[in-house]
């Protein structure tokens, strides 16, 4: 099962490598991992997307909690939550026809063209991972020149909060 886990930790040097090291040492998989400071500069917030059986996820949770720098964590997949990911895609847009088609597709997916060059467009798109996948699927394979994705960030809905 896929799980999305949020972790609040001390914004200390090396905190990220402790988490990354834990996952590699114990053979847990990481689909994506994002991290940045929060509104409180002493705290970092990390979102980890991983897969595993219930037993593995239970161990991941316990092992993360055991890290001295980890203050609190939450398995967002245990309840209602929102996930968003940002993707930048550079696509072939040379002929008038291609440019029109790209603009139209970007609009359908509520993306924005953020860079226009002679032969390319760069499109910015945010949404759940599945939406970004769908956008890539909708493009002709030859049209994609470059893709970069941030990995998911997540937050609980309504009163569900991860705060200290």
């Amino acid at each position, binding site marked *: 099962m896929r799980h999305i886990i949020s972790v609040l*930790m*001390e914004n200390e*040097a*090396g905190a990220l*490598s*402790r988490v990354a*090291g834990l996952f590699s*040492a114990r053979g847990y998989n990481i689909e994506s991992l994002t991290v940045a400071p929060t509104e409180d500069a002493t705290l970092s917030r990390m979102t980890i997307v991983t897969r595993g059986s219930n*037993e593995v996820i*239970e*161990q991941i949770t*316990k*092992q993360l*909690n*055991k890290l*001295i*720098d*980890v*203050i609190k964590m939450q398995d967002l997949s245990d309840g209602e939550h929102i996930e968003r990911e940002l993707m930048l895609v550079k696509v072939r847009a040379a002929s008038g026809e291609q440019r029109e088609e790209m603009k139209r597709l970007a609009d359908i997916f509520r993306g924005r063209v953020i860079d226009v060059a002679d032969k390319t467009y760069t499109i910015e798109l945010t949404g759940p991972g599945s939406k970004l996948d769908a956008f890539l699927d909708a493009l002709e394979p030859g049209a994609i020149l470059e893709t970069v994705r941030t990995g998911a960030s997540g937050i609980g809905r309504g009163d569900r909060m991860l705060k*200290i």
Partner: protein
Amino acid sequence: MAELELTGAEIVIRCLHAEGVEYVFGYPGGAVLNIYDEIYKQKGFTHVLVRHEQAAVHAADAYSRSTGKVGVALVTSGPGATNAVTGIATAYMDSIPMVVITGQVPTAAIGQDAFQEVDTVGITRPCVKHNFLVKDVKDIAPTIKKAFYIAATGRPGPVVVDIPKDITQHACAFDYPEAISLRSYNPTSKGHAGQIKRAAQMLLEAKRPVIYAGGGVVLGNASAALTEMARELGYPVTSTLMGLGGYKANDPLSLGMLGMHGTYEANMAMQHCDVLIAVGARFDDRVIGNPKHFAKEARRIIHIDIDPSSISKRVKVDVPIVGDVGQVLEEMNRLLKVGNERADQAALKAWWAQIELWRAQDCLKYDRGTDKIKPQYVVEKLYEITKGEAFVTSDVGQHQMWAAQYYKFDQPRRWINSGGLGTMGVGLPYAMGVQLAHPDAMVACITGEGSIQMNIQELSTCKEYKLPLKIILLNNGYLGMVRQWQEFFYEERYAESYVASLPDFAKLAEAYGHVGMRIEKPEEVEPALRRAFTEHKEQLVFMNFITDPRENVYPMIPAGKGLSEMILV
């Protein structure tokens, strides 16, 4: 008024004084010269100069294992730190509280591939409870305070504090924090009351109970509470390799050690019980063998541990209790005493009758009628002559298992060995740490000719500090445990397990200034041991016992097999 400023090096020393440190085990080098200069000027603790950094860390580790206090080691950057890694990993695997201070190249040189630079924090990260790189002299005192606190609380473990050389030169005002709290670290000590109640109830419902006691009983000083519980209920107790001494080995309720080389009765009882209470133990592969085979019999499991991640890691449990094992057991004892319920005595009687049948197998018997020295016999005699009162350290291999099986530990913190990492070479430095902590105690190191040579240079340290250790070398000429596996599982192809060209150990010991003996006949065993502990009481005695090279450790559960699939003698 200008506050008095101290250098970083002085602050390090002051912090160690404030922590009440008695011994620092260490080895100097460029990055820690400022600290050593301050050591020269102080009297608060004794610095013990080892001959290899690995030994410094092992000695500090054993100091901790035998006293319960935090052990301290100090090494230089680069090779000093990498030499320390085996010691740190050994302590980590057995949850030993320790603070290791490592020197680092000056801040400005970090990342420049400077002379004797390694990324100590990076290298040690997977084998420490936590580590720190100190980047400001003002951080030294709070960091050392945190290091001691983290090392000793919750599930204990080693903490590394890496200090760049320039930081030890800088100065600031010194103020050692009285107490420290960390918002990200609040170990649980009190178990959940509801769970403890459920556990007590489940214990009383048992028809075939077993108490399975691990190293957590020793580390958590829970021996008295465990004993009270076992006696109150009349239930059998088995100990892991790390738990030996947590419950008296000679007590009728004791089934001895369980696991790969555990007793027949302990392993059979473990497999066939209906209620199992695991106390500070972690169901590891050397203990329960194959978890699938273990799960074949239905049983209900209660698991008390300070570390939530140890619970339901390898075996699913019914009543998890996270907390300090001593506190939890005390609470459970209280509940068991106030309630007037009793366990089913008829069922318990039948269970003990079954256990006695298993015991009658006499799984630790061995051939006493040969003209070769049997290693088991040496350990038995050592036990007799020391009246069970010695501290016994061991290395890793067959001799370690014989020590565990035949020396009947009846007190905690007397049996000092590397259980988790299985590090050959710990025995001698472990004995040093123990003897320094307990100057008047008898300290024996049971070792093999492979293991002892991994840190034999420490004989020199023993001379310097006048440590009257008794080294019991069970010399079978082989890397015996390896040879045993090759005999059983590799059709007797003894690849690289025979150690040719051994030194004359007695002469070697004499060269270091100690007493050496070579013992070749069974009838010489007892007199040699007696002389060592009387005539040579004040000296280090290195006893080279030439033992039966073909002797094996029994019982044995082959790796990957189940608890009831033992090979018996």
